[in-house]
């Protein structure tokens, strides 16, 4: 009897594992929590850079390209004689941990980098959900930190909160700037300021959503827009009937917000179902990347068509890295050749983050944390995402602006969606290439 029980148990386990394995064969491979990139070459020592990346999870689209960029720049350092530290040549090792897109895991991994790996620098990158916890740990442990690719406002509010940060240096756009970019897109769609257009807001009550919400609510009336604010919602809500009903009864012209893909899919389908007929949709976060837009297209082909979003980087941007000498387009082409995919916007920022780190160590010439911090603070560098200089401050956080333009997802003849840059007026002094014209129509106006 006992033997039969054990046999049954073993069978159950085998069946369960085999079912999971059978299903997994078409679902992509596993991703271990941690991975490292060794420096290569023959060096006197190694500079350790900690990097927490959302390789998997809701933000996985943002984390794409991390391994490629890490490998490319580690190799570049190795091929170019390393970095001079205290008179000796050092290679770099970037220790990458997967955050699984979970903020708690970000803190845990950043702490591991600080305590167990004893990193010389920390990179906090890919949306406020990752940047805030990682930068918070770097500030607590006194580790120089390159914070990048998360809007400045939520990082400033949550990491600095009015107290001067000593170790964290942020580079990205502010929400005031992204508002300008969205406003330019509304204008392109025929909803210019002071025309009385009604803007329906869609924000989750997380750090990012709250920061966007407050600034949009403040700036929209100043530009003569009518705000239709159905209130913020917890990310993960199942039903958006009330929100869609509020948009419909107000007769919104523009739907604007920032959401993760699962929330946006529910919200957008509720709007379509309710018959909301906004002529213009601008949405951050969920509509930036090919992979995330694919989740929408997987539901219904053309669902993402016409949605507009902010564009912070594309391979055709007119920038060249002062550290490696590589032009933006050359990097994008190499990525395409290696992976068969267009280099996503966040991967450009991953490249810039490592450029900033390498530049700081080159300038400091030592691993002394305070000296590296001072070198980082003095950054004035042309990166692949544009010039970065930490010359501004918000709530105690030192930051530098990066460029932003406006784009639209347009359905191509082959049935795929392509992000086309249609507006570059926010940074008119920089020649960001326009790759197409605004086309009217979204899933809400069918």
């Amino acid at each position, binding site marked *: 009897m006992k033997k039969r*029980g054990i*046999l*049954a*148990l*073993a*069978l*159950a386990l085998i*069946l*369960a*594992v085999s*079912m*999971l*394995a059978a*299903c*997994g064969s*078409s*679902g*992509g*491979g*596993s*991703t271990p929590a941690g991975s490292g990139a060794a420096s290569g070459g023959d060096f006197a020592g190694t500079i350790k850079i900690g990097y927490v990346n959302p390789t*998997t*999870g*809701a933000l*996985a689209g943002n984390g794409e390209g991390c391994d490629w960029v890490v490998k490319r720049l580690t190799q570049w350092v190795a091929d170019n004689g390393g970095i001079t530290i205290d008179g000796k040549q050092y290679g770099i090792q970037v220790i990458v941990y997967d955050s*699984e*897109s979970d903020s708690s895991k970000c803190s845990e991994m950043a702490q591991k980098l600080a305590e167990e790996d004893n990193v010389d620098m920390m990179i906090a990158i890919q949306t406020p959900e990752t940047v805030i916890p990682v930068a918070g740990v770097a500030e607590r442990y006194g580790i120089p930190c390159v914070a990048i690719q998360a809007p400045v406002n939520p990082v400033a509010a949550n990491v600095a909160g009015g107290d001067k940060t000593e170790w964290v240096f942020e580079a990205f756009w502010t929400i005031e700037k992204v508002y300008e970019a969205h406003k330019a897109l509304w204008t392109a769609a025929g909803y210019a300021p002071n025309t009385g257009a009604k803007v329906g807001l869609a924000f989750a009550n997380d750090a990012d959503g709250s920061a966007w919400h407050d600034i949009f609510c403040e700036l929209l009336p100043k530009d003569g827009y009518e705000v239709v604010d*159905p*209130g*913020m*919602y*917890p990310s*993960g*809500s*199942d*039903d*958006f*009937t*009330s*929100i869609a*009903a509020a948009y419909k*009864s107000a007769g919104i012209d523009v739907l604007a917000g920032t959401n993760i*893909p*699962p929330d946006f*899919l*529910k*919200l957008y*389908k509720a709007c*379509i*179902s*309710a*018959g909301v007929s906004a002529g213009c949709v601008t949405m951050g976060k969920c509509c930036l990347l090919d992979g995330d837009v694919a*989740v929408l297209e*997987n*539901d*219904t082909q053309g*669902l993402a068509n016409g949605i507009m979003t902010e564009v912070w980087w594309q391979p055709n941007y007119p920038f060249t890295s002062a550290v490696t000498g590589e032009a933006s387009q050359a990097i994008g082409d190499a990525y395409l050749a290696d992976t068969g995919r267009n280099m996503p916007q966040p991967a450009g920022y991953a490249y810039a983050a490592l450029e900033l780190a390498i530049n700081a160590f080159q300038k400091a010439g030592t691993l002394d944390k305070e000296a590296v911090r001072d070198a980082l603070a003095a950054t004035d560098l042309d990166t692949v995402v544009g010039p970065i200089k930490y010359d501004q401050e918000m709530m105690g956080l030192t930051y530098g602006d990066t460029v932003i333009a406006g784009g639209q997802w347009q359905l191509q003849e082959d049935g795929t969606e392509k992000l086309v840059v249609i507006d570059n007026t926010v940074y008119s002094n920089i020649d960001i290439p326009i790759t197409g014209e605004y086309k009217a129509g979204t*899933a809400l106006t069918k």
Partner: protein
Amino acid sequence: MIVLQYIINGILLGGIYAVLGVGMTMIFGIVKLTNLAHGEFVIIGAYASTLIAGALGVDPILTLIVTIPFMFIIGMILQSGLINRVMLKGSEPALLVTFGLSIILQDAMLLLFTADARHAGGAYSSIVFHLGGISIALLDIILLVISLLTILILSWFLNKTYMGRSIRATSDDTQAASLMGVSVKRTYGIAMGIAMATAAVAGLCIALKWTYYPSSGGGYLLTAFGVVVIGGMGSIPGTLVAGLIFGLAQVIGGANYGLLVGYILLIIMLAVRPQGLFSK
């Protein structure tokens, strides 16, 4: 008109909640076990439907032909080989085993499928009917029909078949049923198999309507728990009514307060009528 729209949407959502809860209520009522791995079973059902549909290029609904029997067998084996054994030692070890199962399954899914969002789309995903100011998505109607059919078939099975009657007899009085020649352990195995089969249906509904991750099971377990508590532990009609009430609460509370309203309702129910609406 807007009130009617809210009620319809609440009912449509409630159908999915009911099918989420029905597997859990069976295990509560018959095996007298709180199955903490039910959420993970649902997510396994969702993955199975999404991946089989993707691999074979068929409509996700058709995958039920494979996933229901498969999940039923897994459930039976799991109950017979694992849970029945620990139940001899009392209900607490069995509860802990389901908790352990939940963690193992979640981590196994994370390892196999990564934590990326998944979603299954059907040809009918974007079809919406507009009838006199009321909008209803075809997908929601299909999911409601699937949920109602599942619950009706289950009720018919429990009330009209010999096996169903023996399951109910075991639920009412284990000792008496055992004396009448009913194999209690086998009955428990079948009950778990049925619970797993309903999890396959719930998983399909979730995959079609929302996006999910390996970690989504916890949230759905909580929803299932709410439905079971409101409806009455072990009551199939109670689960249906409770699912609809829970769905309406979500819609009335809106995206902003839906979760809050649902759980306030749950606490009120626990305080006022802990046995649930339909429990004896």
